[in-house]
């Protein structure tokens, strides 16, 4: 292949020569394997790929497995979902149930609901596969969420990985969309109720809302179109987008190589870890089977989404205490928190702030997450590549922002269970909602403040340890009568982990080449101050030397110098 591009004329000769000289022959293994490998390579030049990727290095840390869990549960979703498609009928045509589940016999329902019941009750393993599919979906989204938190709190999104963060964010949104469309397919009472809420929210969008809902449902809610439309999205469009985005995500991972935690021997210019072939492949492949096995184990032991208990969708029955799947909770909670009477009529047109405000808050939360790497990159102005992960404490403001966003999310999420909390703790629903409203507005600020203090405290402690060693817990009495604690000195390796981190100082506003200070620069300086005003610098060599001078070897006075 190499020669062909340069001079096509010589192709033949070179080709024949190559064929004779260099058949691909693995060092060990059967003749058959060698022949097969040779056959494939002569037709695909796959050896280049194996050489390229086969010994790629993957650093090891438990938190790096979260993304893997997401990937493997997605594979399980694809496998189980495909099985379900063989039996599921995405149709809202009305039928009278006459299957083997006695309590529902004779009840009118949609063909979709009937087929979901038939999967559960007529097909061996059908219920198992429905439960595998649903549990895998829940695990998928949970793993994506935790994976995102890992990336955020370790700063793995910094250059050159900002784009991959954004792709990951898109994957998260696609996963939520998959989950919601899937949840709506069986057309049971809960899924219909979920759609009803979507319909109501969409109608609240100014100007176009009614039309969007009307076109989406193919007429008035609930109509007879929505299940088959969502089905097209659920099994075709969204999975295709997911797979494409996943491909891009993993490709960029390979191009950028994996990040690693700071540690002895690890630099910004290397990757330390195990090679893909064979160690990582065996570990990761084995881990896939473990994730798969755990999902199947849960699915065989625990019921999920027992649609036969809910019955078919009907716009009228009560459904107290019912919950959406957990990942939709934050949106449902946001809706609950709007105070009464937030709707206004302006010039004859109705504006539903009770719906718009929650939507805007959610969009704001999501947009902050989506664009955070670009914001932080703009604030620091740091254009270097970063391959060494931050310990969360060493980026106090970022960590505090993360904690604030998590608190907002958690408050919204908890609000979705306000009725359950009220009944469980015997409170009035009003009290619970008011507490949740308070937490939603004030909680993030409190979380920010506490987290930042904790981070700075931990950094201070790290400094102490880097300078004076670990407290050994052994108290000795000096000749002068004074008590001190003996400190054991750090090894060079331990110290490196404590002192090697990035520090930023607040930006000073300076006039640009034309001698003006732009407003943008002022904003940037203000944000930079917010980020980096409070900071603990890493210990320097000079400080270590100084501390060694005035403390006598390993023994060091407990109260020290800052």
């Amino acid at each position: 292949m190499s020669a062909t591009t340069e001079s096509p004329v010589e192709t033949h000769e070179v080709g024949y020569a190559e064929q004779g000289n260099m058949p691909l022959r693995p060092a060990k293994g059967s003749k058959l394997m060698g022949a097969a490998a040779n056959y494939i390579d002569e037709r695909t030049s796959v050896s280049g790929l194996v050489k390229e990727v086969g010994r790629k290095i993957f650093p090891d840390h438990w938190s790096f497995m979260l993304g893997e869990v997401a990937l493997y549960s997605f594979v399980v979703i694809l496998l189980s979902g495909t099985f379900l498609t063989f039996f599921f009928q995405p149709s809202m045509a009305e039928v009278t149930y006459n299957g083997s589940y006695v309590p529902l016999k004779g009840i009118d329902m949609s063909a979709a609901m009937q087929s979901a019941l038939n999967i559960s009750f007529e097909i061996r393993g059908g219920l198992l596969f429905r439960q595998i599919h649903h549990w895998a979906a829940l695990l998928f989204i949970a793993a994506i969420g935790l994976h995102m938190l890992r990336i955020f709190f370790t700063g793995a999104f910094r250059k050159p990985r900002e784009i991959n963060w954004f792709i990951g964010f898109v994957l998260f949104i696609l996963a939520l969309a998959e989950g919601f469309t899937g949840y709506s397919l069986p057309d049971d009472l809960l899924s219909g109720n979920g759609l009803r809420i979507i319909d109501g929210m969409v109608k609240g969008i100014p100007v176009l809302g009614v039309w969007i809902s009307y076109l989406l449902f193919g007429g008035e809610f609930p109509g007879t179109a929505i299940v088959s439309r969502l089905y097209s999205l659920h099994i075709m469009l969204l999975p295709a987008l997911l797979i494409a985005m996943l491909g891009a995500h993993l490709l960029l991972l390979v191009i950028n190589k994996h990040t690693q935690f700071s540690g002895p021997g690890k630099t910004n210019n290397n990757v330390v870890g195990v090679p893909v072939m064979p160690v990582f492949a065996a570990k990761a492949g084995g881990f896939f089977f473990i994730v798969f096995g755990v999902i199947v184990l849960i699915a065989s032991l625990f019921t999920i989404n027992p649609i036969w208990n809910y019955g078919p969708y009907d716009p009228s029955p009560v459904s107290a205490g019912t919950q959406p799947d957990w990942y939709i909770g934050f949106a449902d909670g946001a809706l609950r928190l709007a105070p009464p009477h937030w709707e206004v009529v302006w010039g004859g047109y109705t504006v539903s702030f009770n719906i718009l405000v929650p939507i805007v808050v959610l969009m704001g939360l999501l947009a902050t997450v989506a664009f955070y790497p670009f914001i932080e990159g703009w604030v620091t102005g740091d254009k270097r590549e970063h391959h060494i992960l931050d310990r969360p404490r060493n980026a106090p403001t970022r960590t505090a922002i993360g904690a604030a966003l998590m608190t907002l999310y958690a408050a919204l999420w908890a609000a979705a269970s306000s009725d359950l909390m009220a009944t469980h703790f015997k409170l009035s629903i009003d009290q619970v909602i008011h507490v949740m409203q308070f937490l939603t507005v004030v909680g993030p600020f409190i979380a920010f403040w506490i987290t930042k203090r904790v981070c700075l405290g931990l950094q201070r402690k790290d400094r102490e340890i880097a300078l004076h060693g670990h407290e050994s817990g052994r108290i000795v009495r000096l000749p002068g009568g004074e008590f001190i604690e003996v400190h054991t000195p750090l090894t060079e390796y331990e110290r490196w982990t404590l002192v090697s981190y990035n520090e930023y100082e607040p930006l000073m506003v300076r006039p640009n080449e034309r001698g003006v200070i732009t407003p943008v620069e002022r904003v940037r300086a203000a944000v930079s101050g917010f980020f980096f005003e409070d900071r603990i610098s890493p210990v320097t060599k000079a400080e270590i030397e100084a501390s060694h001078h005035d403390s006598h070897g390993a023994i060091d006075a407990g109260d020290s110098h800052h």
Partner: protein
Amino acid sequence: MADHDDETLAGSAVEKAEPQKISAGTAVIPADPFENPGEPQHHIRMTDKDPAEEKRAARQVSTLFFASIVFSCLAVAAYIAFPIKDGDTGSIRLNNLFLGLGIALGLLAIGIGAVHWSKAIMPAREITEQRHLTRGSDATRAKAVEVFELGNKESGFGRRSLIRNSLFGALFAFILPGVVIFRDLGPKVDPNVVLRHTLWKKGMHLTLDPSGTRIKAADVTLGSAFHVIPESLLDSEDLLEEKAKAAVLLMRLKPEDLHEPEGREDWQYNGIVAYSKICTHVGCPVALYEQQTHHLLCPCHQSTFDVTENCKVIFGPASRPLPQLPITVDDQGYLVAQSDFHEPVGPSFWERDRA
């Protein structure tokens, strides 16, 4: 992902710094940085030291793989041994449990075996690979620019603005039919009109949901509440769509507890009132009636409506009172509607308050 031939054992090639001429922004660059001490001593495993240990680990791995075969076969056996019996939910549970356990244990044994293999037997030594700046080398980038420039020159894309701009126009216009074609996702009629009407009309009987039996006013005792549908609903073509608008709650209170606004005093009959059951927030059924307080509670987001005050919102995210259905009785004492609702029911929408 340039070349990867620079693979070395960890620690031996630590400080091969790429020249960093890239802005560090506001980062503090230490004047006298610590040196990286390099990879610490490698940790030796039992299986590295002791061939017997290694043998044992190898045996464990293959035992797990064999166990997996057994479990998978057991799963197949469970598929056959636990058939689903018509009308017997217990048989479904057994099928689910044993088929699932077989598959799960089969998978777990493969997984644990492979991980054990990689951890105990495969080399544990960490390896170092060099990184390179993600950007292409200057030469590569110059080549790429050249390719673009050549493309631009040969096509005249930059120069021939008429061709270029008309192409942009064409590409934009080409999207339009793709948008317009979605109009027929919904029927021809204007939703703003349809949403204003329900099946209720003058003389329509109130009937019980779901049986469809008429309701005698005399049977509505004080404090009771009924889920109600219009009599014609059960024969309707669009049953669910109509029900999603026409569902009604019927309650009887003491007439003196009701504070009906002016002009609506005769919308009730002897303290019997009928209100839309569709929440004015986002449309769930408002179906929880608290007898003592005369409050209606929506289970979805806990909007609470006070029936004595014409169902105005006293708590929760909803804004509007539930619309009231004016009712009376026919000459045999059955409850009937006086008319349709006087305003659209359910969630608010942009043109809701237009005439």
